[in-house]
């Protein structure tokens, strides 16, 4: 039941990276061989979150066709105290690299899609990876849409903000539906999450507004903000409610329990 999971959103700051890192860590904790990809080439962040000092090759190099994917893979298992399970492929955070990726043309993007698609062979079939988790850029742009097309399941992170709800709805119906992608919603930064009445009201609203399955509801946790990106909750605080929510989400994905 191996899968490529892309995590996307309409707006920035909805929690894509937080979800990607913690979902990947949770899946790895369950004994899966996981690789997390930073496909947010315009604002790379995983190198900072995962505190990787330096690397010789970046995902940019793989998509450029100038190196093998194995050169980009970084094994973080021992750093995160997981046995042989957690790998990461990072986007180059230098301004020069970001500028370079912004200037790519359609043909390059088409080849990049081909290279993302071939990861299914090189990493999943040949090297036994169970899950590839793609952290993407927000909104409609090449790197994100490439990731969505290559994925088996797309998780859309969204908040209750008007602008986000409106854009997300349009994106779901005008992009995701066209590609016929299996899609699930994760509502993040939810207030009053302890009130059952409020939660039921929200679930009903989600059903009416989006017509896509709701996979997780993440309350607004001050502890997450306070951690300032220094903790991977799924790993460092396994008993935190946020980690529990991720546990449930990972289980749904593993059991393929998404319509």
């Amino acid at each position, binding site marked *: 039941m191996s899968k490529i999971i892309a995590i996307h959103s309409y707006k920035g700051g909805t929690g894509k990276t937080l979800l990607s890192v913690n979902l990947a860590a949770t899946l790895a904790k369950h004994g899966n061989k996981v690789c997390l990809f930073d496909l947010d080439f315009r604002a790379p962040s995983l190198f900072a979150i995962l505190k990787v000092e330096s690397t010789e090759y970046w995902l940019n190099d793989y998509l*450029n*066709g100038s190196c093998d994917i194995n050169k980009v893979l970084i094994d973080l298992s021992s750093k995160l105290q997981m046995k042989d399970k957690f790998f990461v492929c990072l986007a180059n955070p230098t301004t020069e690299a970001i500028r370079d990726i912004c200037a790519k043309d*359609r*043909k*390059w*993007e*088409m*080849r990049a*899609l*081909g290279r993302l*698609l071939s990861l299914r062979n090189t990493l999943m079939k040949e090297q036994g990876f169970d899950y590839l988790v793609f952290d993407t850029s927000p909104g409609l742009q*090449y790197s994100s*849409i*490439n990731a969505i*097309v290559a994925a088996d399941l797309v998780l859309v992170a969204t908040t209750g903000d008007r602008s986000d709800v409106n854009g997300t709805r349009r994106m779901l119906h005008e*992009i995701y539906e*066209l*590609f*016929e992608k299996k899609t699930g919603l994760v509502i993040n930064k939810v207030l009053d999450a302890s009130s059952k009445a409020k939660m039921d009201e929200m679930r009903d609203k989600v059903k009416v507004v989006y017509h896509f399955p709701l996979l997780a509801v993440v309350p607004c946790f001050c502890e997450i903000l306070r951690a300032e990106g220094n903790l991977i909750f799924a790993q460092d605080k396994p008993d935190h409610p946020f980690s529990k929510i991720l546990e449930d989400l990972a289980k749904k994905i593993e059991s393929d329990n998404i319509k």
Partner: protein
Amino acid sequence: MKEEMLSKKPLQILEKIKENLEKLNEKMEVMIELQKHGKKETPTVPDASLDVMTLLSMPDHLRKTAMTICRFGRATADEVAQQTNRARAVESAYLNQLVIMGYLKKERKGRKAYFYIDKEVHESR
């Protein structure tokens, strides 16, 4: 024995006729499809790129076919039809239309026709 020998020749002829009919059919399908969806469609754009934004702007019926080729890299109309759950003849027509539009290349090997995304566009940098 003699009868068997005699029956072989007409069989071969029939085979040949069938083969030719299939080829004709394929050409007809393309013509019908082109008429259905308006023949204003640009005649052969050399090396048009099949990127995701192009996929998004395609009519639904063609996008499904094009996405399948994207995933396979190279496939016959039969293989595409199995994925999309549409008739082989329909996929054959759509694939041929994508060839005419310059998004795909077609190659015949014996009786099979393979459709693929142009390697040169795909590989060269």
